[in-house]
């Protein structure tokens, strides 16, 4: 998942750890949990944000040590909110919205493979995702309802962030990395309609937050990401 890659990258950048990004078609199969991205450190392989955070913490780097108990509880709760709403909404849009599936997801997911493997694998993935959506009660939702959920989530994040630079004031935490990963993906991924990114753009403090993190941690790094495409003339004034 693209947003997970950005999240982990942002987290590792925030910890000031040197990293190298490599793209592989069989990444899902190399990962110990079947999910991407994963990090490869020495002879250890760790996948998914939770285990990566634990691994990095065991090596002496942590972003949330300065938080008190109540703040840690709130951070974990907001991380679940993002996973519950934003990640699921992204999956829904990618795999359950017929137009997007046909025109964007199938070609993109199957691109490393020859025909007919590309179609078989992407149909298989679609079937898996739809089953999971059914289990969590999202299969019956319409696109409007999903967008409404995204809006609710963004509203909660926006209210929590307020006018602070990061969610827990002066220092970034795992939550900042996670929110950045998802919002950046939503704002920069080309889809059939702009409805999803419009929902995020309604909250100016969230777009400013994304821009700030991008400039602070990704400036000068040549990744295959483009800058946040927000129509605003205030970009340079946010640099502090």
């Amino acid at each position: 998942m693209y947003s997970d890659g950005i999240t982990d990258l942002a987290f590792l950048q925030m910890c000031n750890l040197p990293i190298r990004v490599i793209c592989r078609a069989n990444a899902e199969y190399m990962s110990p949990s079947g999910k991407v991205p994963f990090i490869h450190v020495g002879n250890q392989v760790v996948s998914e944000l939770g285990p990566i955070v634990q691994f990095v913490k065991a090596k002496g780097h942590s972003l949330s040590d300065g938080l008190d108990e109540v703040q840690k509880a709130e951070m974990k709760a907001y991380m679940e909110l993002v996973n519950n709403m934003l990640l699921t909404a992204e999956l829904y849009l990618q795999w359950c919205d017929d137009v997007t599936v046909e025109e964007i997801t199938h070609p993109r997911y199957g691109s490393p493979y020859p025909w007919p493997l590309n179609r078989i694998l992407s149909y298989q993935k679609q079937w898996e995702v739809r089953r999971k959506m059914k289990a969590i009660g999202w299969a019956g939702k319409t696109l409007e309802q999903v967008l409404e959920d995204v809006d609710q989530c963004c509203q909660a994040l926006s209210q929590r962030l307020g006018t602070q630079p990061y969610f827990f004031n002066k220092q970034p935490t795992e939550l900042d990395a996670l929110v950045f990963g998802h919002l950046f993906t939503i704002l920069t991924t080309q889809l059939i309609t702009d409805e999803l990114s419009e929902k995020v753009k309604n909250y100016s403090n969230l777009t400013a937050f994304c821009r700030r993190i991008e400039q602070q941690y990704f400036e000068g790094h040549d990744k295959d990401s483009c800058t946040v495409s927000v129509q605003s003339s205030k970009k340079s004034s946010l640099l502090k």
Partner: protein
Amino acid sequence: MGVHPPFHDCSPLPLPAGHLPALRTQDEGTISKPQQIITHLRKQKYNADYDLSATQSADTLAFVSLLEEKLLPVLIHTFWVDAKNYVEHTRKWYAETIPFPLNFFLPNAMHKRHLERLQLMWGDDYMEDEEKLEKELYREARECLTLLSQRLGSQKFFFGDSPASLDALVFSRLAPLLKAKLPNGKLQQHLKSLQNLCNYCTSILSLYFPWDRGDPLTGAPRAAGTDGSEAEEDPHKRRKQLLSVLVGLAAMLGYAFLSGIVSIQRGSVGPAGRQPVTLEEEEEEEEE
């Protein structure tokens, strides 16, 4: 969803597709989805979150997500999928409380539904590997309980002195876990070690469920011993007993007739039965 307190007096009316909880309303019939029930109550101007600030509303959404993602699936596993707990506690609990004839199929239907849901959510890895389940998912559920305890602190409710919808949700998840007598109670033990959460549940029980004297959640038999509720229960109990006896009798008679053990002999007094007439005819034929 998840776990529900037993009903003391359940009319045997059909539930929507066997779902609980179910709210009977005057205008909209019976509603069974919790979110729809809450929406209906809000339309009737009952809203527990009216006084919350924007940040508190945002926190509510976040903690609801935490509960639903980390705690609820493990609670479902504890009550409905863990073999010992399901057979010795949950199935008995529901079967004793739900009225006839729903008590025969509703608990099993719910068990199958929950099992399927967990299989889809967790995949076969966790369902088959007990150790992995315990190490990762139960650990996260225990962490969730600890986080709730840290957030609650020494406050009376999550957002101060008056309860909000988050309190209702947290209570509904924790109270059954706290009070049920589970044979396999690892998660329960962890909850009991968090004193502020135990006090929180107990105080809500005494404030909002005062009619349940003693322990309301440990089972119908104990609740039936409460004064005043016996008289209410009796008509239903007798009706159930009578129905059971009638159904049993009908089943036995039906089987007896179908298998030919018993057949009705039409007597010679009164209008002549078919058989005697036939015999006479045959005799006449033979004579001829």
